[in-house]
């Protein structure tokens, strides 16, 4: 029945694609993206996290995703309306019973005089200028390995008021239980080459204060983004190796921030780098205890970074017409000594993008020695 439903949607999309190609209606925009990712994993036989592959991980895996995106827009005098829908149909390993359907985004936006914006529905939260890590974005929804990843939205009700170079936004995130109630207020301001924003979040009876600042020069950009919050989403490990879940940790305020830059050397070569500090994560001593009691405390595991200090660097060389690029990305955690080096090759054509990525891990707490993936994206 599910398969029948999905085929019906695919048939409808194909029909709409043909019809819209003929109609070319400017108020209606649509896009279909088909992504297929094949992955080869070389499992680390000496891993302390996954000894003797007790997780039963496969060497080969695949994920196919279809993203139909539809945008309907109209204006009546000073009033504007937009309906945005982005669905996701995904299938793992081409298996019959592993097909899922969800909406990444589904929201309505009303606009008055181009200054007042009301949004209701499921929408991506776009807080933070950090490229890899966004501490201000309290819904952790990012895959740091893929910068271009399509993210899933969250249900929200927002109102934004734009005045001059300022924006004031109010957010409410509906929850079933009253104690999980979340609401936020954010203020953005631009002056000359500097942009700043301040935010306050009420997160289920906890609080978060955030800032975001960026500077854009002729040949470089620099930014910083950070929060002070009295909640955590991280486990910690005590001296006996026992895991302490996030909800049992003390409610004191802790900081998390990111410093980053992008430097353009010439039209082909550029470098991006980020440093992240997380007060609520493990220090060197904690990591020792963590390693001692593996694999029992697997919940804490993060393949890229588990410590307080994380570094990211990316050296990119792209051809003159941005048709292809080669990247050398690396992640390093100073506390846990986790190092992951990732060479990436990207070929971008008008309707096709091919991305070949490898990830090499150096550490005994890694699950894999090497992961290689080929991602083919088709755009219609």
């Amino acid at each position, binding site marked *: 029945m599910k398969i029948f439903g999905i085929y019906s949607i695919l048939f409808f999309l194909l029909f709409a694609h043909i019809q819209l190609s003929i109609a070319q209606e400017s108020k209606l925009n649509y896009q279909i993206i088909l992504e297929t990712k094949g992955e080869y994993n070389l499992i680390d036989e000496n891993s302390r996290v996954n000894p003797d592959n007790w997780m039963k991980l496969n060497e080969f895996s695949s994920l196919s995703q279809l993203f139909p995106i539809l945008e309907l827009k109209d204006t009546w005098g000073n009033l504007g309306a937009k309906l945005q829908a982005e669905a996701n149909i995904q299938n793992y390993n081409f298996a019959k019973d592993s097909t899922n359907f969800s909406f990444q985004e589904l929201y309505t*936006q009303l606009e008055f005089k181009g200054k007042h914006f009301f949004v209701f529905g499921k929408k991506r939260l776009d807080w933070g200028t950090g490229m890899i890590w966004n501490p201000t974005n309290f819904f952790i929804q990012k895959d740091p390995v893929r910068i271009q990843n399509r993210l899933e939205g969250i249900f929200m009700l927002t109102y934004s008021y734009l005045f001059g170079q300022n924006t004031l936004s109010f957010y409410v995130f509906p929850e079933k239980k009253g104690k999980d109630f979340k609401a936020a207020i954010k203020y953005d301001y631009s002056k000359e080459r500097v942009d700043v924003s301040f935010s306050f979040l009420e997160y289920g009876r906890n609080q978060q204060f955030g800032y975001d600042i960026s500077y854009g020069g002729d040949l470089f950009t620099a930014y910083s983004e950070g929060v002070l919050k009295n909640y955590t989403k991280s486990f910690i490990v005590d001296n006996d190796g026992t895991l302490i879940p996030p909800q049992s940790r003390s409610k004191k305020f802790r900081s998390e921030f990111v410093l980053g830059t992008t430097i353009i050397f010439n039209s082909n070569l550029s470098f991006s780098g980020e440093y992240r500090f997380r007060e609520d994560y493990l220090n060197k001593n904690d990591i020792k205890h963590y390693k001692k009691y593996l694999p029992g405390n697997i919940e804490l595991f993060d393949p890229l970074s588990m410590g307080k200090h994380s570094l990211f660097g990316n050296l990119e060389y792209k051809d*003159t017409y941005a048709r292809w690029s080669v990247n050398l990305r690396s992640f390093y955690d100073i506390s846990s000594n986790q190092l992951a080096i990732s060479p990436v090759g990207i070929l971008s054509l008008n309707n096709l993008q091919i991305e070949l990525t490898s990830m090499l891990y150096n550490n005994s707490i890694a699950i894999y020695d090497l992961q290689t993936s080929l991602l083919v994206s088709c755009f219609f």
Partner: protein
Amino acid sequence: MRTTILILLTGFIILFVNDVRAQTPDYLFDLDKSIYIEYATMRMEMLKNDRVVRYYDMEFYRSDNKMRMEFTAPASEKGRRMLNDNSSLWMYLPRTSKIMKLPFKQSFMGSDASNADLMRLCFKNDYEIVNNTDKGNAVVQLELKAKDLEVAYSKVILLYDTKRKVPIEQEMFSLSNKLIKTMFYEDIMKIGDTYIPCTIRIKEELQKNTETKMYYTNIKKEKSKPAEFFTLGSLRR
């Protein structure tokens, strides 16, 4: 008597200077006017050995010195937006709903144009005329010098059609006086009371076989968007 003559003479000189000033055309003002459009649909083609290797279709919006571009094709770039608010340059990536700040001198989407060429066009603000040569047939050659080091090109030599008040050709030089790019303004059309070049060709002088062409259509000179449309807050929506 002597005082009266002196006063009359001074008055005459002031009137004469003002008259001369009034008659001298403000080339930089006219130049900015001729390339100023509020809205257009734009196709950018990047050519190598006269073959199109990449193209972008976009909607182009401008308000004074602020510009915004919204990509409509190719399919892989659809939904991407760029904003120059006259001090910062931003790009919106629809796949992640993410905003990224860009350095001004980065090449524009792999073309021969830099972000500064496309998103920072204001002769009056950035340059002053240091030389003016009459080339005949209502064409003058203007030598422009950058007012400060922040401007992308330190020197510009420009051929200017004084009759239609449009640029014809523009050579851009580096600080070391090396010719970097040449821009050709073509397909001049009269829109309202001004002539506007509808095709701009950019030739990269350091790589002889490459060229970027920009075609403007559906040009409008009337203001259609509020000032807030050209802010970071609006780019996210």
